[in-house]
């Protein structure tokens, strides 16, 4: 008999024995369990976000569990507008703003915004042990509204070693940037001039686009589906495989992103708004292994995702979390993540003056070919209702800074400056 193994096996079997109910029903509902966190996300010279978050969950009875969540994002800073740097100051005039960028500086737009998001999960366990999960989410920003929901149905087969899941979800978003969404590939100043004329006609005050609200907005919608299998591999290992498919439609542009139109010397002769297709169809294959190392009892969470869509983006993402328990309650969890993506077909650093306009073009750095590396560490102490934890992470995104064939002075600029970000998250849980 492996002596020290006995107690552990016995303890869990005893729980199973005593956990079930016999003749008398246990009392339902023992209050809310709350997990709250504050996340600071800060990019070097770019965006800063402070994000207080609250998750509250409650067992309504033996079968029903409810989770409600709320998030506030306080965002500020500067985000790349898509233009390339040049050797003179650049002024960007849009319907709602006018800003100037220093010579030789990467063009960025200052912004401030507040986002409020609320959501819920309602999980119901059926008599046969199947689980139905219903989720709903709403989020609001000054220029964006999003509503989403979904349902996932999971059931076990084969002695509860295999779980199959089917899910379907959808979202409906509304984009209403100040001054209305720009027309795709329109020259920048033209759009602004057009808007000024309108204002004079209406004899209205300089509305920030909030007025007239939805009339000056565009809709975006999507449907996504999930097919999943979770397999218990052994006493200490679990594997999940998911395939998700998403169809998006409507206004998929970023209303703040533009492209420089450069001449043969690499200097900008104008700017145009970006343009993306109004449909996007994507697939993701995701696998995740949860494995408790024998003897050490460390826990590995290894995730891998392959993604591709009909915009030509292909991406591989690997995520590793390695949990090391120190004593009964304390643990350390290093985190490594590596993401590598190819560019969308219509991604370009700039447009070239005199060349015919493409149907679609975007200089959004997120659609470029790039790789993102992340390293982090979480130190946590488990409590009855969750944990108290501090998480520090550092992320760097880098792409091709000097693309082939850049004309004139552009060869001397970094056209894809690294994005460096730190995340500091403090989490604590309580019950009431």
């Amino acid at each position, binding site marked *: 008999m492996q002596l020290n193994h006995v107690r552990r096996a016995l303890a869990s*079997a005893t729980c199973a024995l005593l956990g079930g109910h016999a003749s008398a029903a246990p009392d339902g509902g023992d209050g809310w369990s709350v997990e709250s966190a504050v996340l600071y996300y800060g990019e070097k010279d770019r965006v800063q976000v402070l994000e207080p978050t609250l998750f509250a969950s409650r067992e309504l009875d033996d079968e029903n569990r409810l989770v409600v969540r709320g998030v506030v994002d306080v965002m500020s800073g500067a985000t790349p507008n898509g233009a390339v740097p040049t050797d003179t100051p650049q002024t960007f005039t849009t319907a709602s703003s006018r800003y100037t960028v220093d010579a030789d500086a990467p063009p960025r737009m200052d912004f401030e915004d507040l986002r409020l998001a609320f959501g819920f999960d309602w999980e119901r366990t059926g008599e046969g042990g199947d689980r139905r999960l219903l989720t709903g989410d709403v989020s609001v920003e000054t220029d964006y509204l999003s509503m989403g929901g979904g349902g996932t149905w999971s059931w076990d087969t084969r002695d509860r070693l295999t779980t199959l899941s089917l899910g379907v979800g959808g979202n409906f978003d509304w984009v209403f940037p100040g001054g209305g969404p720009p027309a795709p590939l329109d020259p920048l100043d033209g759009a602004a001039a057009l808007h000024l004329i309108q204002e004079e006609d209406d004899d209205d005050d300089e509305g920030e686009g909030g007025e007239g609200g939805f009339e000056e907005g565009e809709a975006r919608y999507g449907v996504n589906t999930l097919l999943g299998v979770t397999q218990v591999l052994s006493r200490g290992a679990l594997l999940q495989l998911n395939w998700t498919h998403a169809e998006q439609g409507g206004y998929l542009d970023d209303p703040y992103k533009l492209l420089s139109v450069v001449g043969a010397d690499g200097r900008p002769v104008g700017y145009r708004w970006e343009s993306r297709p109004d449909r996007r169809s994507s697939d993701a294959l995701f696998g995740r292994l949860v494995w408790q190392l024998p003897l050490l009892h460390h826990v590995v969470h290894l995730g891998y995702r392959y993604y591709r869509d009909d915009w030509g983006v292909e991406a591989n993402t690997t995520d590793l979390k390695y949990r090391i328990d120190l004593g009964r309650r304390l643990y350390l969890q290093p985190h490594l993540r590596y993401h590598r993506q190819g560019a969308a077909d219509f991604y370009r650093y700039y447009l070239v003056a005199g060349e015919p306009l493409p149907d679609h073009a975007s200089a959004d750095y997120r659609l470029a070919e790039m790789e993102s590396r992340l390293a982090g560490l979480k130190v946590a102490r488990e409590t009855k209702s969750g944990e108290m934890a501090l998480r520090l992470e550092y992320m760097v995104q880098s792409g091709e800074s000097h693309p082939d064939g850049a004309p004139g002075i552009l060869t001397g600029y970094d056209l894809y400056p690294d994005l460096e970000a730190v995340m500091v998250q403090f989490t604590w849980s309580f019950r009431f």
Partner: protein
Amino acid sequence: MGDPHPIVRPLELRFDHHHWRGHFAAMGCPCEVLLAVESEEAARRLLGIAAAEAWRIEQKYSRYRDDNIVRRINRAAGEWLTVDEETARLLDYADLCHRLSEGRFDITSGILRRVWRFRKDAAPPAPEAVEALLERVGWEQVEWRSPRLRLPEGMEIDLGGIGKEYAVDRVAGLLAGREAMGYVVNFGGDLAVRGLRSNREPWVVGIRNPRTPSAGPVATLRLTGAGLATSGDAERYLEFQGRRYAHILDPRTGWPVEEAPASVTVLADNCTEAGMLATFAMLHGAEAERFLEAQGLRHWVFRA
């Protein structure tokens, strides 16, 4: 089969320093519940809940009754039988314990009592008699596909080795979340402790050496959530021709475990776990202490 007859016996309740102390009889032993509650009314209600559950379990799993599931299983030997969910959980548990103890713990071993009589003046059985019975012992011969069971003909099961500790934990579970700030459920020395006394102090439990009960406790424990159980019976053994035979039988041989301790007491998270580890330790005989040390739990082993 007619309706089982529910058990009803007298309840006793009195106030004792900082708590109410209730008494009743179940499973062949004195049962006691200490309750940190204000009113007598609440104490009486909780005592009623405790007694009803203990009697329910006794009624359902006692091997001395002829109207329960144990009898039904034993009568159906040779045929498939579907058992209820609670019984299935107990059988799952017994199955695991059998494997964890490498066959030392076996709910089919009760049949050996037919030849073993643990009285001081009794003689040990003839080896042939033990040998003959041994063919009818062994959980590995039982087909258990939860919730369906098929006991080979001639075999019997007895859940007595789990029942009392299980009842203690069941009662402790039923009292949770009610009026009591804390309570102790004590069924013949196997107990579960939860919460605090009315004076906001932990419950105090003393452990005595069963060989020298008047000498005062060898340990005094202050507990707020734990299970404590004892295996072994210092008074029950048989002595024959200078040899002492312990009360505990090894189902693999049909003979008493050699060099078994007089008693083993284990402190664990709950009474069932404590009881099973104490039983395993007894079954390890001379190795009892070594087994318990490997489990990393507080324990007290007394040897004659």
